[in-house]
Structure formats: C-alpha cells, structure tokens
C-alpha cells in the first residue's frame, strides 16, 4: 500500500474555473458585499475566525421551522447579540395548502370540510364562522333551529376549553413544564372523546353545516357529557394549581412578551392578548351571534400585558366556558337541528350508526323504495348544492385566539366565488417582533407560546 500513496491523486487540489463563484448555502463560508458569511450548524463554532479589526459581527439564527418550541412550523429568524434578540422576523407559509382556492371548486356545503381543517385546534369555530357567513348570504340567520344553535354553542365552548388546554400544554412544554403538557393533553382527551361521540370524529368533524348541524345529539350523549364535566373541572384545577403562583413559571412569564393596548390596536391583535391589556373586548358580548347574549358568563381580563396575564386569562376562560357548556346543556329542547327549508337543509336526518358514520335508515328506505322525487331532490342537493344569492358578507366569531372573520363573496352560483378567512393567528403573529425585540432568546419562546399561533390557521 505504501508505494501507492505517491501516485494517489489528491482530490483536495482539484479545482476548476469559476468554482469560487458558486455559492453553496451549506458551505462553510462565502463572500458577500457585507463581508464573509459563515454557515454553522452546531459544534463547529471554533472553526470560524474572529472578525477582522473594525468589522461588525452579526449572528442570525434560524429557529424553526422544525424546532420543537416554535409551535408548529413557524420559522423565527432572530438576529442576536449574545443572548439578546435585536431583531425578530417570522417566516410562515410552510403549511400553506390552498384551502381558500380549493373552496372555490366545491359546493357551499363541501366548504365546511375545508374550513374545519384550517386552525386544526378550533375546528368548530372555523365551521361556525363559515356557516354564519353562508347563512347571512342566504339571509336565513333567523331560521336556524334553536336546538342547532344551542348545539353549536355547546360544541364551540367545549372546543374553547380543548384549545386552551393545548395552549397551556404546549406552552408549558416549551418552557420546560412537562407536567403541564401531560395534564393538558390528558384533559383534552376527555373533550375529544365527547367530539367523537357526537360527531364521529375527534378533529375536523365538518359537523356544523349551513342551515344547522349535520346530526342530532341524543339524550344518552347529553347524559355522558354531563358525567364528564365534573371530572374535567377537577382535573382543570390540577393544571391551574400546578402553574398559578408557581415561582418558576412566574419567573419565566411575568413581565415577558409585553404588548400594551396601543400596540394591540395598531397591530390588530384580538383575543387573550388584547384582553391581557385590560380591554374586555369579546365578540360574544360585543356583537353576539348564536344567541350568546342569553348566556351568563364573564369576560376574563388582566392588566399586566404579559405572558402570565394571558395564561391567567386562558385559565379563567376555560372556567367561563364550562359555565356556558352547562347552560347550553340545560337549554337543549327537543326539535329539529337542520333548517326546514328543503332547498338548503340536508335531506337526511342523520344519526351516528354502528360504523361511526352518519346514517339514516328511514331516509335511505324512503329514497330507494318509496319516492322517486325524494331521490332526485337528494341527488340534486348533494351533488349540485344550493345556489346562494350574489353579494358579499363578513362574519366573525370569537375564537380562542381572537376574531376569526370570514369574507365570503358569491356570484349567485352553487360554489363560493371567493372565501377568505381572517385568521386570528395570522394577524397576531405579527406582534412577535414587538414582543420579542430586546428580550432574551428564551423569552421569545414564552412570547410565541402566549400568542398561541396555530400554523394551520396562519397559512391556510
């Protein structure tokens, strides 16, 4: 072997013309007009030369999109000076799925299936906002059956609890409180079980439809929801006992992620972040929809403008939602859950069958053996859909993250001409820079956790 070494071609010396002009972003370093840029990936810091005399050193760190503490596929581009963040930018778009474009190619009813998948932690709010918009366009808001509206409120408020539980769970995990994570997801499971029992699906249930809800809720199910609530309440107390007034938790959250009322107004921030400045703005109170004016509950506020205040608001909102859930259960009166108007209302009165799917044996019997007209009507409504008068509306609901608005444009056809969602996460994420500039890297994690963005909603 030794005699071969002299003849072995040294590949390191091989070079070709123009090689130095190719910029490989994964290469160790390359020259720019601003100086040498080094790309490091950890463990190789000592290979970088110190900057020349008089040259400034800038460190830009990419946090995400695959970082466990950035709440999904959020990419944070942080410019650092030691441990201090001097500039924050957010990179989004990693979960863009073209939901709004897709909706333009489906019927108005099928749009629910897309809307529910946007902010995947609050599917019922997405569905409700969309359906309220469609109903406004159809001018049938007052004709929605009472029972359907109560069921909507019931599901939305249960959904608020489950969403806030995830906010606390992931927020806790990101700050190192792993027990909060296990508690939060354990409690959320109780609510997801209710969703599965009522709608057939734990998430993305497409349950709220234009005109009402997809299927009725049985007395047996109501009883089981009632039996779950005491356990849920008891366990929610565990989470709040763990973190409220906890010295470590407060050390990480008090005074962090400060954003005052003027900042919230300028940046269009809504939801718990706005309420943490002391302004009790809640669309359920300010512009009630779905009969929220008939329920008794308080709007939770804090005046600290910080992460801890938002955390306390979420805890309190879960208890308020629990009150609304109990009131909604008491209000459930027998009746239809879909609008009577045959041109809009889904023809079948579905109930969950043994296979977990929505079924209606009576309806199948009618259309298949008794009435040809009913079959034609069913076929037309399900495949073609209903026409919606031309025009545009904006409908908004108070989702757990803030104002979820939907702007719907119809050209009079059976498909949306344009559907746009003003997702609160998308808007609130703009406040990251205002909250984080000048803080420590660890506080960025706390601030982003308190914004509680869901990238499915941000990118849609």
């Amino acid at each position: 072997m030794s005699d071969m070494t002299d003849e072995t071609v040294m590949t390191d010396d091989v070079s070709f013309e123009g090689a130095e002009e190719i910029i490989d972003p994964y290469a160790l370093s390359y020259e720019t007009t601003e100086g040498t840029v080094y790309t490091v990936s950890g463990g190789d810091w000592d290979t970088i030369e110190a900057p020349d005399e008089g040259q400034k050193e800038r460190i830009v760190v990419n946090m995400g999109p695959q970082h466990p503490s950035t709440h999904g596929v959020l990419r944070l581009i942080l410019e650092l000076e030691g441990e201090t963040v001097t500039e924050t930018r957010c990179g989004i778009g990693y979960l863009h799925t073209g939901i709004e474009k897709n909706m333009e190619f489906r019927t108005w009813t099928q749009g629910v299936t897309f809307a529910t998948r946007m902010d995947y932690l609050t599917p019922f709010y997405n569905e409700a906002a969309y359906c309220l918009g469609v109903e406004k366009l159809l001018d049938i808001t007052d004709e929605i059956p009472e029972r359907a509206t109560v069921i909507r409120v019931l599901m939305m408020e249960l959904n608020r609890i489950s969403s806030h539980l995830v906010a606390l769970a992931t927020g806790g995990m990101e700050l190192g409180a792993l027990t909060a994570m296990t508690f939060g997801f354990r409690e959320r499971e109780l609510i997801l079980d209710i969703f599965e029992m009522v709608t057939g699906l734990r998430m993305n249930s497409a349950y709220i439809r234009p005109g009402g809800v997809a299927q009725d809720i049985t007395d047996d199910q109501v009883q089981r929801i009632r039996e779950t609530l005491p356990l849920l309440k008891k366990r929610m107390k565990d989470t709040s006992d763990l973190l409220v007034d906890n010295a470590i938790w407060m050390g990480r959250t008090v005074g962090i992620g400060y954003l005052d009322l003027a900042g919230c107004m300028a940046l269009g921030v809504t939801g718990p972040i706005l309420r943490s400045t002391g302004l009790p703005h809640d669309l359920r109170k300010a512009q009630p929809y779905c009969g929220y004016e008939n329920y008794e509950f308080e709007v939770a506020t804090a005046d600290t403008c910080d992460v801890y205040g938002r955390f306390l608001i979420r805890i309190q909102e879960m208890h308020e939602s629990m009150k609304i859930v109990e009131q909604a259960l008491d209000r459930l009166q027998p009746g239809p859950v879909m609008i009577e108007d045959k041109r809009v209302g889904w023809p079948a009165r579905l109930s969950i069958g043994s296979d977990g799917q929505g079924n209606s044996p009576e309806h199948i019997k009618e259309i298949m053996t008794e009435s040809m007209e009913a079959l034609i009507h069913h076929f037309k409504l399900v495949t073609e859909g209903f026409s919606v008068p031309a025009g545009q509306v904006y409908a908004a609901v108070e989702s757990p993250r803030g104002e979820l608005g939907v702007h719907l444009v119809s050209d009079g056809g059976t498909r949306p001409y344009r559907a746009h969602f003003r997702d609160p996460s998308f808007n609130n994420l703009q406040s990251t820079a205002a909250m984080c500039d000048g803080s420590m890297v660890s506080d960025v994690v706390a601030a982003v956790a308190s914004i509680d963005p869901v990238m499915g909603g941000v990118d849609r």
Partner: protein
Amino acid sequence: MEKVVVYRGEITFFVRREHLVAFVAALRDEPALRFEMCMGVNGVHYPGDVGRELHAVYPFQSITHNRRLRVEVTCPDADPHIPSITKVYPANDWHERETYDFFGIIFDGHPSLTRIEMPDDWPGHPQRKDYPLGGIPVEYKGAEVPPPDQRRSYT
C-alpha cells in the same frame, strides 16, 4: 367615493384608490368614527369587470362605537397598484403581503412587499381566476375521478 352599497346589514364604501389613505385615516381619527382596527385586506378577482378587475376589500371595526364597515377599492389588471395603508394601520402589513402574493396587487408604500405564503420564486398569483387549481385524477374502485377543477360544474 364611487358608491355605497348596503347589503345584509353591512355597508360597503367604494373608494377611488387615490383617496384611500386619506379616507382610512379619517376613519381612524374622527371621534365620531373611531375605527381603531382594520381586520386586514382581501383580494377578489373579477376578470369580467373590465378596467377594474382586481378588488381589495378592507373590513374595519370600531370597538369604541361597536360598529363595522367595509371599504372596497378597485384597480385594473393592467395597472395593479393600490396605495398601502400600513402607515395608518400597521396591522395590514402581512395582510397586504398576502394579497400581493395571491393576486398580484402592488401596494405602493408597503415597507417590504414580498411573498408571504408561497415560496419567493413562485411564478404567478394563485388566487386569480385565470390560475388553475391543478390536481391529478384519482382512481376509485375502477372508476376515475377527475381533478376538482375538471369536474362537472353546475353554475
């Protein structure tokens, strides 16, 4: 102002683009109006509306007076420029970037009008009506289901 439309209890003001910034500044600052929050901007593409193909729709909300209104601005496809209102409502920063990304409306005066949802080098503006949805046919139990934009439409 071009016209005012009231539909389903919502009021829409159609404003000429050259007056947009002054108009929204008055919306924000007049004590009787006080529309503190702009809830973003949304584009709508009407290829048939010659000379005003691109519409930008701004929903506003006043928390003081608990009111809402909507402002609509149009621009032709050949000259897709609308002044940015981020100086008055900083909240519209990302919303205008999104509308630029999806519709190609250029918001003059925006601090950094770049794509936000699509990759930086993406060709075209996906939400425009002349941009295809795309998709592939799917086989299901021997039959072929065409992609969504090639299925039978009833409108």
